């Protein structure tokens, strides 16, 4: 096995990032191996979302390297990465509120998947979205909106799926349902990075977990080994 074949789908290496003069990532490294679900955990303000934005090209890294599929992609624009096969579901509801359900899904076809395939996959998995295909997405319920967002990740069959705070503002039952779906997507061989503030919701489906605090990675490994680090990160006990 050459080193190339073992390359992770996404790798951040010693990445630093800043907003103006304020540095928020102080050299973090993390990997998403092919076909695995990695959970990126940490309390408010740990730098999780910034790390995700660096990975998607939305925010520049001031130092370090971002690799996707073995390529150095620092400086790649988010739309270019998206067409390449990196699918990102951003924080909040990753949908266009003023577009209909169907038009939302149409926007997902930039990666090269045809419209009929996208619609088929999305409506097969979420019949409820099919019933509302001509409704404005902004008028769906919170859970349905998030389903629509996830449906995009499902329908375009990406190489890498990045999800930010899937659970935000949703009922626990719906969150559980959505994570089952993430697990199903991963089972098809898609590599997934999930950013979550509430660890318990995601640890069930994650193969690996990375814990961040104050802009540094403080622990990483198999979820069951990380309980102590998690408590420390969230409750401020000294590590």
């Amino acid at each position, binding site marked *: 096995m050459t080193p190339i074949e073992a390359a992770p789908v996404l790798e951040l290496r010693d990445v630093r990032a800043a907003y103006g003069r304020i540095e928020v990532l102080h050299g973090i490294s993390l990997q998403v191996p092919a076909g695995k679900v990695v959970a990126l955990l940490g309390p408010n303000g740990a730098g999780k979302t910034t790390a995700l934005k660096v990975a998607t090209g939305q925010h520049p890294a001031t130092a370090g390297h971002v690799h996707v599929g073995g390529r150095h992609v620092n400086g790649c624009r988010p*739309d270019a990465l998206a*067409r390449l096969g990196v699918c990102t579901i951003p924080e909040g509801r990753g949908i*266009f509120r003023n577009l209909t359900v169907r038009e939302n899904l149409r*926007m997902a*076809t930039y990666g090269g998947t045809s419209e009929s395939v996208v619609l088929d996959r999305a409506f097969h998995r979420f019949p409820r979205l099919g019933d509302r295909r001509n409704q404005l997405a902004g008028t769906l319920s919170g859970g349905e909106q998030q389903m629509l967002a996830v449906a995009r990740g499902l329908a375009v069959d990406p190489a890498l799926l990045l999800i930010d705070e899937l659970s935000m503002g949703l009922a626990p039952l719906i969150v559980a349902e959505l994570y089952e779906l993430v697990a199903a997507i991963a089972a098809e061989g898609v590599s997934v990075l999930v950013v979550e503030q509430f660890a318990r919701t995601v640890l069930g489906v994650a193969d690996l977990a990375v814990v961040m605090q104050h802009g540094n990675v403080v622990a990483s490994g198999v979820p069951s080994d990380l309980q102590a680090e998690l408590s420390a990160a969230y409750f401020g006990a000294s590590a």
Partner: protein
Amino acid sequence: MRDLLTVLVLALSSGAIYALAASGLVVTYTTSGIFNFAHGAIAMFAAFMYWQLRSGDAWHLPAPVALLLVLGVFAPALGYAIDRLIMRRLHDASPITRIVVPIGLLVALIQLASVIWPPDRVNATLHLFFEKPKGSASNASATTLSIGGVHLTYHQVIVFVVALVVALALRLFLYRTRTGIAMRAVVDNRDLAALNGADADRVSSMSWALGSMLAALAGILIAPILALDQVQLTLLVINAYAVAMVGKLRSLPLTVVGALILGLAIESTKKYGNHLPHAFNWITVDTVPVLMLFIVLLVVPQDRESLIGAARDRTRVPMPTVAHAVLAGAGLVAAAVIVPSFVHGNALGSVGYGLALAIVALSLVPLIGFAGQISLAQLGFAGVGAVVMFKVGADGNPLALLAVIVVCAAVGALVALPVLRLRGLYLALATMAFALFLEKAVFTRFDKFKDGDGAIGRIRLPGLSLRSDRANLVVMAFVFAVIGVGVAELRRGPFGRRLQAMKDSPAACTTLGLDLTRTKLQIFALSSAIAGLGGALLGGWRGKAGPEQFSLLQGALPGLPLVLLAVVGGITAVAGALLGGLLLALMPLVGDAVPTIRNLMTVAPGLAGISLARNPSGAVAQMSDNVRALLFRRRRDDDSGADGEEPPDDLRARLVPELVGVGGPASAAELRALDDELGLSWGRCDGDPADQ
């Protein structure tokens, strides 16, 4: 019955014109999120361009070639340039910047067109399409068509058909093609559109090119019917604002309905207008579109999306100390004493004019700067002040100023009452409608004043002659200084805090128990009173006044550039208002003094407005920032203990990723194998994104 049919056919024909003009407006708004005030100006500019290419007096190209060049090359290029140079910076700008910058473009284009095609030297007219040249022997029936006993020219029929086709084609394009959907998606959520793989910058450039093309089409078709005139053509499209508002700037079918309503209203006013009872004689062809805009704004529920997407206004509001403010005021009065010794004649006239305008601009500081309420009607209120002065204080009785204040405050509150729930763009448009109404229906009712000959005396005090230029200038400087200190003081007091709170978060204010209605009425009344005072003094300085001084767009010193320059000066600072007013009056003077840059000076107010896209805080803030930065740097050099440099911004500049393997160099074959395994396709990365 026959009459009714005539009106109906004519309404369809003029409705088509408005539909055409408004659909472009709707497209630009739905695909860029910016209300393009300059839409009419682009239409006008393109119509002139067409004249230049087509006319026998100019380059005399065949019509199809000229059409192709204007619609296919010039207009899209203009739209693309507008997006690249100006609008692209606006997608996270504050509401006031998003309104003022397109107005700057409007003013700049009008003035640029007057420079390139001076109305006094170029006699530009466009002929109707398929119109027989004059003097040819054909009879009327060759160029007209009879429908229901009404004669229509082929041109009118073309306009109707084009309007219909454009509306349908746009509907299909925006809702059925991926590029159209992407245009709407980019407005909705720019970042998400990029995460979906749409090139947001490219998509919005295309929207502006399309909007500009539609404007050009409307301009070329409307100009022969109306007149090829810089201001008239621009104003016609302003009438189309009402039409576009019917569809809340989003719905094309409703826009067409709105166009028919306006067409019907205008044609029936033309036909039956003089049968109206005397009390309603202010309903004329000129005022109908304005009234419709005002009514539509009040009736149509405000589109909440129009508030989303615009960033909060983060402009700093400077808070000078009382001592500073008083000192600056005293300095201004002293300058007013000295200036007439050096400046004479026309130049002195302009200085006084500028000072009076500065008082009007000052009325915007508490209104826009502190309270965040956008008004384009301030010069209209100033006109009301001048009218009151003309009526009761023509002899210069200072007590008349009290009447001015009372009347203007009342008018201001009266206007504020119906528009209380409007914000941002809707408020700007409503106040604009009111300014146009004042101009067309109110200022024209006073004899002498309506001819620009309303004599207004300078202020006199018992036993004190203030009639000389110097004394009058000092009076105005004194008034400005007193109000300026008052405004600065206001910001420090409880009322100023209430205004700032209202601007920052109306929702938070209501939960705190603040009465927003009262606050808004108060600030509108205060602001119009200041504007009215400025107007009365302006009339006194000139000795006479008329609608020309207080119009929105026409005339020597129109109202839109005033708002523009006040914002350019810095709408949150008293000094900004002074700078704005003086700039507006003095720029033409500089042009007269240095003829080589006269053209530049004519276009300057518009360009200054456009420049706001770069520094939205205004000139005064910019200058004080620069001074502060200079001082800071000097101090830092002394300390020599500076912290790190800011990271460079061009980190994202590269588009295509490097081919660097992880853990040592990799061969192309290895990378390809890896891509296959992961399902990545680098070929798509640098492919053509938008139109597949």
